[in-house]
């Protein structure tokens, strides 16, 4: 019996004209309505104009080689790139003596390798790596950078600067704020009223005041509250200030993670007889921390951006060191500061954008494991 069952596929037809490709996209996703089309043209024009202005200024009118400010100062000159070239090493190392810069490079390198190991999911030994990065690496970096021991010459923190200070500040603050933030978050959720009240007061106070104020007080007023003669290093004071600040934000992030853990988990931990610290350390925290990793990365991004505020209290971080360059009589021109700020914006953007991409990636990755 022959049925009307077709055994051969019908020939494949190409989609109707105007339903694929650029034309389709333009028709349906740009000029789908009159207002939309006009808006699209206006916005596109604005975007192109902005992009063109920047490109024209940076490339076509830009000054590429010059011994000093003469050329950059000419009428109609664009970006003053030789200034960047002359200063770029200082931006990365600050006033770190050139003979000792390999130490900074080594610290950057170890950090990059360890961080890559932590961030790329396929690489094993996560726990060991994390322990190394959060416990051992800061110690190694500290001795390598400061020196004065193991035959390394002492390099005072006054000589640190630029990207080095920015990274030291933000990485230390995030590393210090993790345990402090966990303690504060647990404290705030604690059933002991005094502990919970004190943690809440600390968190809300720190979150309620501007970082500039905290930094000013740390840099200039801290010794007033200490016994005479106690006066930590200026960079250390800034680190303390930013770390306290970061830990309050970290505490709120971790508290959010703790709240996301179902109550059954707490009860389950109690039911099998775990003590408070054991149930936190073995059951709750591992789950909560996993949930909040993207938020922690975001917190790190804002911390990284916020470290630029230490310029206001006279530390030479990346922004600060770029600004001191503007004062150099050799390079002071009408375009110097514009070029400096533009380059800085690109550098900061590259750092923060890649981190935020990573945070989104990890968020997607973690999400799948929680899908039901």
């Amino acid at each position, binding site marked *: 019996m022959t049925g009307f069952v077709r055994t051969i596929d019908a020939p494949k037809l190409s989609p109707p004209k105007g339903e694929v490709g650029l034309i389709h*996209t333009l028709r349906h996703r740009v000029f789908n309505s009159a207002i939309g089309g006009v808006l699209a043209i206006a916005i596109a024009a604005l975007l192109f104009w902005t992009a063109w202005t920047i490109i024209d200024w940076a490339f076509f009118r830009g000054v590429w080689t010059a011994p000093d400010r003469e050329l950059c100062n000419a009428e109609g000159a664009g970006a003053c790139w030789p200034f960047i070239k002359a200063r770029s090493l200082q931006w990365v190392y600050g006033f770190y003596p050139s003979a000792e810069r390999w130490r900074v490079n080594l610290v950057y390198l170890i950090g990059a390798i360890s961080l890559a190991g932590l961030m790329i999911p396929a690489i094993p030994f996560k726990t060991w790596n994390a322990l190394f990065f959060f416990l051992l690496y800061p110690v190694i970096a500290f001795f390598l950078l400061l020196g004065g021991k193991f035959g390394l010459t002492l390099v005072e923190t006054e000589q640190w600067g630029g990207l080095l200070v920015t990274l030291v500040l933000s990485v230390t603050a995030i590393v210090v704020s993790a345990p402090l933030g966990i303690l504060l978050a647990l404290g705030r959720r604690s059933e002991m009223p005094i*502990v919970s009240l004190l943690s809440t007061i600390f968190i809300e106070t720190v979150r*309620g005041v*501007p970082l500039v104020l905290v930094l000013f007080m740390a840099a200039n007023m801290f010794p007033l509250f200490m016994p005479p003669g106690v006066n930590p290093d200026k960079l250390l004071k800034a680190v303390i200030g930013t770390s306290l600040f970061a830990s309050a934000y970290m505490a709120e992030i971790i508290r959010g993670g703790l709240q996301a853990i179902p109550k059954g988990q707490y009860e389950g931990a109690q039911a099998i007889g775990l003590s408070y610290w054991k149930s936190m350390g073995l059951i709750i925290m591992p789950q909560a921390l996993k949930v909040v990793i993207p938020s922690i990365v975001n917190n790190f991004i804002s911390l990284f951006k916020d470290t630029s505020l230490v310029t206001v209290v006279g530390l030479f971080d990346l922004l600060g060191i770029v600004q001191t360059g503007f004062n150099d009589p050799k390079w002071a021109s009408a375009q110097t500061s514009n070029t400096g700020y533009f380059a800085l914006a690109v550098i900061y953007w590259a*750092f923060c954008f890649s981190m935020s991409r990573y945070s989104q990636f990890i968020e997607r990755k973690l999400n799948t494991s929680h899908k039901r």
Partner: protein
Amino acid sequence: MTQQSDDQRNSSAPVRGGVDLLYSPKLRGIVSQLIVLLLLAGGIYWIVTNTQANLVKLNQNFGFDFLNKASGFDLSTSLIQYSSDSTFSRALLAGFYNTALVSILGIIFATIIGFIVGVMRLSKNLVVSSAATIYIEIIRNIPLLLQIFIWYALVLKPLPGTKQAINFFDTVFISNRGIIAPHVIFGEGSWISVTLLISALIGTWVFRRWSRKRQEATGQILPAWWISIPIIIAAPILGLLIAGWPLIWDYPVLSGFNFKGGVTLVPEFIALFLALVIYTATFIAEIVRSGIIAVSHGQSEASHALGLDNGKTLRLVVIPQAMRIIIPPLTSQYLNLTKNSSLAVAVGYPDLMYTAGTVNNQSGKAIEVYSIALVVYLTTSLVTSLLMNWFNARVKLVER
């Protein structure tokens, strides 16, 4: 530790009571809290004695008397009458008003731009949505302080000097001294206008309540907006007409170096305001976007099925539901904007942080001045949180 206690518990019954007491969570809680409290009290005592000793060594004493001294310095812009003869406390007050000005205006505009961009990012139009994405991804990844510096350079550079100021009909002038606009002085009889405005506001509020009730009862919709807005606009004008138009306009006039009269928005304010608004709007846009995405797709489909167009669906169905998700993170953005306004020091806009610094410098009372600043910022944060919590409670889902 726990293992040990279990063993003890099982083996030796007589000491059981004592062990129980030692390991009772309640007692341990009280004891550890007492320890924390003691440590804290000790720490505070230690800090206070240190500070006292340090102050005594400097022949300084703690006190707020200095606030009544003449400040001796001028401020570039102030909302209240202020000169170098005013007191330190007035300088701080002027600074606070400047902080409030830039924060409130910043919050309003950042919210508007943030909502627009957030909705734009979800637009089906490819150009519109990608423009929003580019804006967000560029701006929020650059430190605010750097943006303030960049804006200040961008604002100052193209603006002409006072003599070549951009002139709008001799009333508004734009130059590198800022935007100078006529200043209006309300003369006698203006109270009539104010009273009428207030009664118009109350009247329209009552009217709108009534029209909503009527809509619920009868289904008829009154164009409440189109009736109330003209009333609100017309009422104060009517009042002014009755009083014989008592407005005195103080027009800016170029004399010598500068414009005289009028009100000035200084470039420092403009740069700070732009930077704050444009930076914060990116975060608000992301909050709005995630809030809208979180509203179930069925809601907008149902709304379309009911025959509401895109705009109405967004306005009447999606946004009200999204607000519940949006408001808590929006609050923290408002707080961030207020705190970030303290970066005014970078461009010399005399906000609270700036004036506190100057007052401290002239009076030498660091602890007093900065504790005032601390308390003011904290209170502002607290009040903003409370206001937003109240608003949040209003829009919260009412569950059965």
